[in-house]
């Protein structure tokens, strides 16, 4: 096994069906043809990389695994080169299995209902407009770096009651955990430590001076026996909210703008029919789902007829499920008024994303405000679009020019 402090080099993939690697540059750049090849081969494929990992390739196989918490544990939810010991209270409820999962999940749900999100909406619109004010006069922008990135960070900071000005700190931790941390354990540990220290200070502050925010809400929460949560549980949940809430929605907003920059017809239609934006958001979530989760196999079973053995991880690709033509006619086309859309962008089963209502609200508001003020925009041919590697996929560089092409 490689030294954990050194990032492991991954040889390039030549046989996707038997040796897939979701960190390969080809996957990062354009995963869709790869998923099609894997799906044509089998509902479940396997790689020896990452100490052994399966990937369900169909919507049905993804659903079976998501609903089978007996054979598939969430104690590890990122496929990585190493399998360090599992920390207790790592990030409940996303890292929890039944029966621990349900109470931890129920604790987080009330602040994230659609009604709660409606109260946040005016602040979100203001945040979007403040960001647009910062670059609209330039005639061009890197929309990933200056727009889509800051919307979820400022939203979650607002909810947690921490300074929106600490945004760059959070963005850096997330990059270290979700991207660098896949191959470099030390980066991940450093980020987790820094994050814990940051939140511990905020928890301490609130012990004397309670506030009306999500941190105080968690500190005041009581379990069924009426006991407060352990500090480690509060910290784990805060880490989760920050990690799960930021580069996911950053990616979803970025991918949506990337699509609209390249598709004037869709842009024009949404400007003419803004009431269609929520439906379009669902379709963009389907076609460009950002989040791939993972499970660890803890019991022998079969999925869609394929044997699955313990000791392996599972790359639970909701994005690939959402491109399965058996489930979605014209799966590779973005149909912004798609009527039937049971997409799995926020997961399926008990681990449905706690923040799905927040993400949807952010996406709708971000697209509405952008289209109101910048109805015409296109990719800047002088720039390059780059995509994040690993567990969350979205544009990290998104150079746009404003106005109609000459």
């Amino acid at each position, binding site marked *: 096994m490689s030294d954990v402090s050194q990032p492991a080099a991954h040889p390039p993939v030549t046989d996707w069906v038997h040796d897939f690697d979701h960190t390969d540059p080809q996957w990062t750049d354009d995963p869709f043809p790869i998923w099609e090849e894997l799906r044509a081969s089998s509902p479940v494929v396997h790689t020896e990389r990452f100490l052994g990992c399966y990937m369900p390739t169909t919507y049905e196989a993804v659903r079976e695994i998501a609903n089978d918490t007996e054979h598939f544990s969430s104690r590890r939810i990122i496929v990585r080169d190493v399998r360090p010991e599992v920390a207790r209270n790592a990030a409940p409820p996303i890292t929890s299995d039944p029966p621990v999962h349900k109470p931890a999940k129920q604790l987080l749900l009330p602040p*994230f209902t659609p009604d709660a999100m409606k109260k946040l909406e005016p602040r979100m619109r203001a945040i979007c407009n403040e960001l647009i004010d910062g670059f609209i006069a330039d005639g061009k922008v890197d929309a990933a770096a200056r727009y889509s990135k800051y919307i979820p960070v400022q939203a979650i900071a607002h909810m947690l009651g921490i300074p929106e000005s600490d945004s760059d700190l959070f963005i850096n931790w997330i990059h270290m955990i979700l991207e660098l941390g896949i191959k470099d354990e030390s980066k991940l540990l450093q980020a987790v430590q820094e994050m814990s220290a940051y939140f511990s200070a905020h928890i301490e502050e609130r012990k004397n001076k309670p506030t009306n925010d999500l941190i105080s809400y968690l500190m005041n929460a009581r379990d069924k026996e009426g006991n407060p949560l352990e500090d480690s549980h509060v910290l784990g949940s805060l880490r989760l909210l920050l990690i799960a809430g930021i580069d996911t929605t950053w990616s979803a907003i970025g991918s949506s703008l990337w699509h609209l920059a390249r598709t004037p017809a869709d842009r024009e239609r949404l400007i003419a029919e803004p009431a269609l934006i929520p439906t379009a958001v669902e379709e963009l979530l389907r076609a460009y789902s950002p989040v791939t989760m993972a499970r660890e196999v803890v019991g022998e079973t079969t999925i869609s007829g394929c044997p699955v053995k313990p000791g392996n991880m599972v790359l639970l690709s909701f994005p690939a499920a959402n491109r399965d033509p058996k489930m979605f006619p014209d799966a590779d086309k973005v149909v912004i008024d798609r009527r039937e859309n049971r997409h799995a962008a*926020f997961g*399926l089963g008990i681990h449905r994303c706690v923040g799905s209502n927040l993400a949807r609200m952010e996406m709708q508001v971000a697209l509405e405000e952008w289209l109101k003020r910048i109805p015409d925009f296109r990719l800047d041919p002088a720039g390059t679009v780059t995509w994040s590697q690993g567990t969350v996929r979205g544009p990290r560089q998104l150079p746009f020019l404003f106005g109609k092409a000459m």
Partner: protein
Amino acid sequence: MAERLKVYVDPDKCQGHARCKALAPDLFELDEYGNAHEAGDGTVPPGLEDKAWLAKSNCPEIAIDVIEE
């Protein structure tokens, strides 16, 4: 005369995606956790039949039934 419809949410399957509430707000209610149940006894008022089918066909957990009476 169109048939009368009733919607029903299976509480064991619902995971709170809230798609039904977004698509057919008059036919569904959400509890404090954001999980859905049918409004009243689930009877679909005339004119909202299309929304009932829309909610059913967009539920990721296949938790919604539309019953023709």
